[in-house]
Structures are given as C-alpha cells and as structure tokens.
C-alpha cells in the first residue's frame, strides 16, 4: 500500500494539478516553484551519485582489479575539484563586500576551481566534442552506401547539401545562366528546396509524432498504467 499505491496516487494528483495549472492564472506560478524544488532534490541526490562513484572506485582499488590505478586517479581528481570548489579556494571576496570572505563567486578568475575548469575541464570537453569530426568521416565511409532506395536518398541529399556548403560548388553551378531553364538546377536553389522544404516537412511530422508519444507516455505514468519506474515490491 505505502510502497506502491500511495506513490501512484501522488503521481495522478500532482500531474493533473500541474496540467490544470497551465490553464489557471492564479496557480500558474506553481510550475516555477516545483521546478526549483527539483533542482534542490537533484543536489540531495548527488550524495548518492558521489557515494556510488566513491564506492565503485574504492572497491576497484581494494580488490586490486585491473586498472585500479586509474580508479585512484579518478578519486583524486574528484576530491581535489570538490574541495577547491566547495571551499572556494583562492576566491577573493566580492569587490563590494570585502569584509565577507565567502562572498566571491565560486568561479572567480584566478581561483583554484576556475583553474581546474579552464585548464582541465574545458580542453577535455571541447576535444572530446571535436573528435566528432573524425567520426563523421568514418560513418560516411561505412554507412552512406546506396544499398536500397532509403539509403540512396539519404546519401544523395547529404552529397548535394555537402557540395552546397563549399565555395567552389556554388561557383561552378553559377556557370548555369540565370535565364535558362536549367537555372532550377543551381546548387543554391536545390539546397534551398532541400533545407527549407523537405527538411522542414520531415521534421514537422517527426515532431507531431513525438508530441503524441509524450502525451501518451505521460498519461500512462499519470494513470498508473506503466509503473515500471517504481520497481518491484
């Protein structure tokens, strides 16, 4: 009862109230309030995340599993960053409130946390992001093959749009005289049709479908038809 029925009742009532809130001005602001509570709960949840991260890595170290050294590095990096950030190490006070030692921003320039963010986090994240350029090449080689009609269409449209993004492609197609009947084959024209017409209509249909999927998934959660997120008894 307390394990399953009560949460389901909570879910139904709360969900319906928030749907109604969209239509009732006096309670519209509840949304902002509740979203703020969620951000706070997420911080509480960090205790579990951090606990899990620490336990997993400590286990690897104590069992001397393969790669336990890396587990130690992860833990070290975690605690150094956490202490620098929560302790505001090297953060000068806010310029208007010099008397308050803790008043500076935790990301203030020159602080230890700022240094870690700029020289550890940023290069690692942006390089990871940049590896996408390589994966695009390998995906293009292996996946863009005209096996069937679908794949051929994917391939052809991608090729045309790729050519249109270069400088020389459009320049070459400009050799087609403006007045001739062939002018509709200018690469910029084709690109315009592909991007503004076909891309738009496909995306619209996908989005309409997604909206319906969200509606029905949400309703299933609110009606208690799908309770898998509550787990077993």
């Amino acid at each position, binding site marked *: 009862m307390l*394990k399953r029925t009560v949460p389901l009742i909570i879910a139904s009532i709360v969900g319906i109230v928030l749907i109604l809130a969209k239509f009732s001005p006096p309670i519209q602001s509840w949304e902002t309030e509740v979203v703020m509570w*969620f951000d*706070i709960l997420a911080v509480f949840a960090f205790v579990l995340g951090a606990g899990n991260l620490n336990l997993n890595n400590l286990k690897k170290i104590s069992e001397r599993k393969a790669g336990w050294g890396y587990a130690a590095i*992860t833990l070290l990096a975690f605690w150094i960053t956490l202490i620098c950030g*929560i302790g505001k190490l090297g953060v000068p006070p806010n310029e208007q409130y*010099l008397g308050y030692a803790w008043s500076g921003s935790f990301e203030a320039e*020159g602080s230890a946390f700022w*240094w870690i963010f700029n020289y550890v986090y940023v290069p690692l994240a942006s390089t990871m992001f940049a590896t996408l350029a390589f994966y695009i090449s390998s995906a293009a080689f292996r996946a863009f093959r005209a096996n069937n009609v679908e794949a051929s269409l994917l391939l052809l449209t991608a090729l045309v749009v790729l050519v249109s993004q270069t400088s020389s492609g459009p320049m070459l197609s400009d050799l087609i005289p403006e007045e001739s009947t062939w002018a509709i084959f200018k690469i910029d024209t084709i690109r315009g049709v592909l991007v503004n017409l076909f891309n738009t209509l496909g995306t619209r249909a996908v989005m309409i479908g997604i909206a319906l999927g969200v509606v029905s998934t949400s309703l299933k959660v609110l009606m208690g038809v799908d309770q898998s997120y*509550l787990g077993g008894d």
Partner: protein
Amino acid sequence: MKQSNVIWVVVMLLAGVYLSWRAVSYQAGAVYVAPKIVADADSGKSFTTWSKVPSVESSNPGVEISWPRTLGIWLSALFTLAIFSFLFGDNVVYKVAESIFVGSSAAYAMVVGFWSAFMGIFVAQLAPQFSQNTFMPGDDRTEPEWLMLIPLAMGIMFLWRLMPAGGWISRWPLAFFIAVFAGLRLVSHFEADFVVQIKSTILPLIVFAEDGAFDLKTSLWNSTMVLGTLCCLTYFFFSVEHTGVVGKISRVGIYLLMITFGVGFALTVMSRYSLLIGRMNFLLKDWLNLG
C-alpha cells in the same frame, strides 16, 4: 612490437625536444597577468586580483608571467593530445585523461549544484540571515521562506534509502517529480510540437499571385509541404498494417524522412569540422605560438 616501441620512443623524444625549444625560444603557452588592487575604505581590507593581459603588453609595468596559467595552457594542450590519441586506439595516456575527466567533471557538476541550487536558493531562502552574513551579503530577503521545507522533507525521504529499513519511502518524492514533469511536458509538447506544427503547415495548395496569375512555384511548394507531412505522418500509424495504399503512402513517408535525415546530417558537418579547427588552432596558435 619491440621495434614499434623504439619508434614511439624516438618520436616522443623528438617531440619533447621540439616542444622545449618552442617553450624556451618562442615562449610557447606563456600567459601574462596584471594586478588590480581592490580596497575597501570601511573595513580597511584590500585584495589583489590578477587578470590576463595580451602578450603585447608583457613589458608594461606590473605585468608579469603567470606560472599557474602558463602551466595550465601546457596541461590543456597535453589533455587535447591525450583525447585525440584515443582515435588511434585505447592507451595509457587516454585512460589517465579519462579518469581525471570523469572525477573532476563529476565534482564540477556537484560544486555548481551546491553553490547555485543548494546554497543559492535553498539555504538563501530558508536561512536568509545566515546566508547574508556569509556568502550572499547583497541579498535583501528578511523572512525565511518556509515553503523550502517541502524540498527539504523530500530530500530526506529520498536519502532515506541509505537507511537499513523503510527505503521505499524514497519512491514518494520520485513519483512526485516524475508526475510533475509528465504533466508539464504533456502540455508543453502538445502546445509547441503538436498545435504549432499543424498550424504552420496549414497552407493553401493552389496560390494566385497579387495580380491573379497562377503562382506555380508557391503552389508546388505548399502542396509538397502539406502532402509530404501527411505521408510522413502515415508512416507513424501503428494500428494500420503498412500494406496496400497505406503501405505505398507510408513508403513515400519513409523516403521523405530519409531526405530529411540526409539534410540534417550534412548541415551538421560544417559545425563539427569547425570544432576540430578550433582545437587545432588552440594547439598551433595558443600553445605553440605558430603563425
């Protein structure tokens, strides 16, 4: 295997020699900073903060080289190379970079959550006196916001799962928030994705220009837009088998979706290459001072 190891060692040594030469003779990666003294007349306290200045000003009075930041640039460069090395296969350097990345980014997210949501909202609203005396002196709240006891209670219920018994109570706040967002998303998706998309697709199939002449181009465009969207929607029908006429229409639908995806793929390519260019530029210019 042994021979390749030798080759790698030689390559690394050469790279090391080159880098030391760049570091010494071209001051690769050097960062200069200038001091700024902030003083407060009331409390008589003063602090010196340092901020970066362009290298052209390195000879200005007071400007000096910042060793932590110069070291930082070198470290960034090494991390960049470490991540790229994964493309050629998993290796020790990548594993080290990955471990540091995971540990410090997890802590990073927690620190941001701690200072912005927990201290900045929760504590600042529940204990305004305390927060104004310590980390938020500019805040003008006077009364505690007792509503904040609700997330506190939920947080405790949630963490109760760490206790030996009664851990099921943590399902209550979870059910609460899953339902909250199910309700919110239901309305917002219905509004933005369903209604708005339908509305913007309602177009006249045949269009006449201002002077009454038949506008072939716009007519074709609109008709394709409306009929194409209908074909794609047909593809998503679940309760009708894709055979016969429906089958043919949904076939056209999937073809149109493939064109959509082809365009989507190609449009992203330029931005992705730009990311790589940005990283290469960092290595060559910011770090090695080339060009």
